[in-house]
């Protein structure tokens, strides 16, 4: 059983007090030009998920507390929760540094993008 603490209101509870929201940081392809989206992009968005053993990032909702969504960085092997962070944020830099495989690629891309838009 996972013991979760809501980073927004501080409510503690087991995983049944929270609503699991699937993988975090899934970006929807831009919809300004739906014709321009390739089947591969759409498939990627709908079905392709990052599923490494170890550090994983997911969304959760504080169902029985404040009702807010937030992010969890969790190790799928040890079930250890490494960090909580806001629903519009990227993980803390030290956690990003530990990310592997698909996650490392995703965060490299996102941080590069964030720098560019700054």
């Amino acid at each position: 059983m996972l013991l979760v603490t809501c980073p927004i209101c501080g409510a503690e509870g087991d995983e049944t007090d929270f609503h699991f929201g699937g993988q975090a940081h899934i970006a929807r392809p831009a919809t300004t030009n739906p014709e321009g989206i390739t089947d591969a992009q759409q498939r990627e968005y709908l079905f392709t998920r990052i599923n490494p053993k170890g550090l994983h990032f997911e969304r959760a909702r504080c169902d029985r507390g404040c009702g807010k969504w937030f992010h969890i960085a969790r190790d799928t092997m040890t079930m250890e929760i490494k960090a909580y962070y806001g629903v519009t944020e990227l993980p803390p830099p030290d956690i990003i540094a530990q990310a592997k495989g698909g996650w490392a690629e995703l965060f490299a891309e996102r941080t590069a993008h964030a720098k560019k838009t700054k």
Partner: protein
Amino acid sequence: MTLTEGASVLEAVFESALAHRAEPTNTYVSLHEISMRGMIDLRGLNTDKKFMAAAKQVLGIDLPKAPRTSETFGDVKALWLSPDQWMILCARDKAPALTAQLTEALAGIHSLAVDVSDMRAIIRVEGEGAREVMMKGSSLDFTDDDFKPGYVRRIRFAEIAALFNIVEDNVIDLYVFRSYAHYTMDFLTKAARKGSEVAALRK
């Protein structure tokens, strides 16, 4: 249903969720419905000074910012639901007017005030074993020191979404969505049946 002379429209139309149900007997805590309470859903950012000031001007209280707390002023009570949501309790016949006042005071501020008096049913669990009965339906430890009068929290109670407010030490108001009222009363009646006291759950 006909309107009797002198009765307001509100009285004639409104029927509480458990109106036709006899109060349970043979329970070791008292269980009864609180029906004439008005409830207003108020949303806005607790970081917005204008919003907080406008709410205070109408309600006479600072909206509670600390999680799981409530504030009372006269017959108006504000329950914290989330950093941007509160439930305002008042007399049922005052709710429409209070909602209108709030809407007016909050004009131009990113916020929302809606009269949701019919949305939920309230069951008051009262007596020596009130906390114990609540513990039978939830995963929380009601003997914890945090659970003092004024405490408010959303919970999963008997597998449904609920909200409770500790009014006094042994008086707990349980708010459930109206369609769950009978189910909740059934559950509580069974959980509080005489002879089913659990000494281990008492402080």
